[in-house]
């Protein structure tokens, strides 16, 4: 199977007052049709920057794609013209943002906003687009869609607004759907509804989903494959089962052990000490070294590469010297 979306050796830099920093460092990812890739990590690890790069939405300046390729169905998006990107955005690849409160326009009705997205990509009349919008609202589970389409965003609850965002994102049947923490601002019951809806949409449309989250629980329920990111690099990548049951990188283990999940008995949570280092302070070695219990002199000198070590059946790529040397 060929990958629908392929990111290869992507490097993104930002000019800051601390000089140039590397926000993404040789990031490689791929998603196949009908598959959900979970991208997980703490804030500041480069998850959202990866998503924005795919959509061609890196603010430039100060940001710049300094190297690598992003291929959507074989077509390289890095260096593509603005006009071409505008064609693809929404039609081929769409994004659902974290904040349904701020990503809708408060002065237009939600039906109007969905219709606008449809008319941008398809040659249809306004009436037809508005009817399609109502159908989409019905599809994402909004009750009485005819009257809701004439509501303004502030008249809807947080969960409904996120449904509107999803309706807008799927309006042109994109082949890749990027969901950037789509449920952080929502209650658990609504989060469950949104997750179920995304899974349903994937079944019906066969879209590839990239789900960005910091919650390993969400990964478990939603993802087929997982990429763990830390300080702008992918540090572990494998099937969801493999990462959850046999995490290799100490950071991936930490992320799984630190959630106070239901259905888990131990009373003491394992914590990851410290915080994600600021990008301008990244040194020569492994970025996780100062938070890692298994740190050795080599970890401070040399950046580990993302490769598979050993031939255990559950072995998968992990960027860690400890794993390579069999210490962890």
């Amino acid at each position, binding site marked *: 199977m060929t990958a629908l979306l392929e990111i290869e050796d992507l490097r993104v830099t930002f000019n800051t007052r601390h000089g140039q920093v590397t926000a993404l460092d040789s990031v490689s990812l791929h998603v196949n049709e009908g598959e959900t890739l979970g991208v997980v990590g703490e804030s500041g690890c480069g998850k959202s920057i990866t998503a924005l790069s795919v959509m061609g939405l890196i603010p430039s300046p100060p940001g710049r794609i300094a190297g690598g390729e992003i291929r959507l169905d074989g077509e390289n998006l890095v260096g593509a013209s603005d006009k071409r990107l505008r064609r693809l955005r929404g039609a081929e690849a769409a994004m659902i943002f974290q904040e349904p409160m701020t990503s809708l326009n408060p002065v237009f009705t939600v039906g109007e906003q969905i219709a606008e997205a449809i008319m941008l990509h398809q040659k249809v009349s306004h009436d037809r687009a508005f009817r399609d919008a109502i159908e989409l609202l019905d599809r994402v589970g909004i009750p009485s869609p005819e009257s809701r389409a004439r509501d303004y965003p502030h008249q809807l609850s947080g969960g409904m607004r996120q449904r509107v965002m999803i309706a807008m994102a799927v309006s042109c049947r994109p082949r890749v759907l990027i969901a950037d923490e789509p449920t952080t601002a929502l209650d658990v019951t*609504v989060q469950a509804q949104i997750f179920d809806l995304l899974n349903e949409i994937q079944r019906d449309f066969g879209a590839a989903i990239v789900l960005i989250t910091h919650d390993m629980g969400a990964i478990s329920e939603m993802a087929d494959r997982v990429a763990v990111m830390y300080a702008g690099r992918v540090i572990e990548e494998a099937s969801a089962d493999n990462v959850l049951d046999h995490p290799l990188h100490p950071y991936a283990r930490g992320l*799984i052990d630190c959630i*106070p999940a239901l259905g888990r008995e131990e009373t003491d949570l394992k914590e990851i000490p410290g915080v994600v280092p600021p990008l301008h302070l990244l040194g020569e070695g492994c970025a996780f070294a100062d938070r890692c219990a298994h740190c050795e002199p080599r970890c401070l000198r040399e950046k580990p590469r993302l490769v598979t070590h050993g031939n255990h059946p559950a072995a998968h790529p992990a960027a860690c010297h400890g794993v390579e040397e069999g210490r962890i």
Partner: protein
Amino acid sequence: MSPLLDVRDLTVRFPMPKPSLFAPRPHLEAVRQISFTLEPGRALGIVGESGSGKTTAAMATIRLTEASGGEVHFDGVDLLKLSPEKMRMRRRDIQLIFQDPYSSLNPRTRVNDIVREPMDLMEVGTPAERRERVVEYFRLVGLRPDQLDLFPHQFSGGQRQRISIARALTTDPKLLVCDEPVSALDVAIQAQILNLLARLKDELGLSYLFISHDLGVVRHVCDDVAVMYLGKIVEHAPRAALFDAPQHPYTQALISAAPSLARRKSKGYVRPLKVSGDPPSPINPPPGCAFAERCPRAQPLCREVQPELEPVGGSLAACHFPGPDEALRDAS
């Protein structure tokens, strides 16, 4: 043992604007006659969706929101009947940690002064003793004394929450109200703060009123859990009973909705219990059970008669048809 906190029939109503000049004034019923007790040295978690009244209930308990009725006995004294000055002096026993560590610390004040301020206001000890205590509590929450002269913006989110905790502890409170203390933090940092809160509870013998929407967090910190829905407690139980054998269908739905590592997409996991829609409006709440519209077990009785909290299994549940859920049990 007599309870530290004994809340009876606490009610909070907010007046709304009149729809027209002669219309009766509508009221938003934020908290509807809730009762609970908290023993010393224990932690009571209040969980619920946004709008369920969990924060309002806690704030009315410690008189930061005005209650419209009920009694709050703290150490045997009804807080709601105290004069403002007496209440102010009581506040040294009751402290608060807020959700957002970014907006709850004054950006123009050094953290040394932030942590000392409650002692200054309550006139605890001599100035020299206060300075010593600041250092002591700074160490206790895992910060370094050489950071005392810094400003809040020089700390990370987790460190700021530690400062909030140090500030809350300086007056030797008996009760700590934690209003979503970790929901603004990254997962890895959440664990640090939760472990700190658990440790402090044991070391200092604190009682917590712990508000959260995250069942996993509540399960980790709390001894007892009260589930709120539209201003009422619908289930109240010790931790083990609530998580292992929930009786109220709403509690079951909440547990079923919370993400868990045991539920795998690869194993074809499908959520057994689905709750659709949103809670009803707290303005003119329905006469019967507020959950009836979203409940899989609802009968005509549920829409007419409000259920009361009654013992079922190991819990207190407010439901006409309580009991374990088959689908949930099969799935787990």
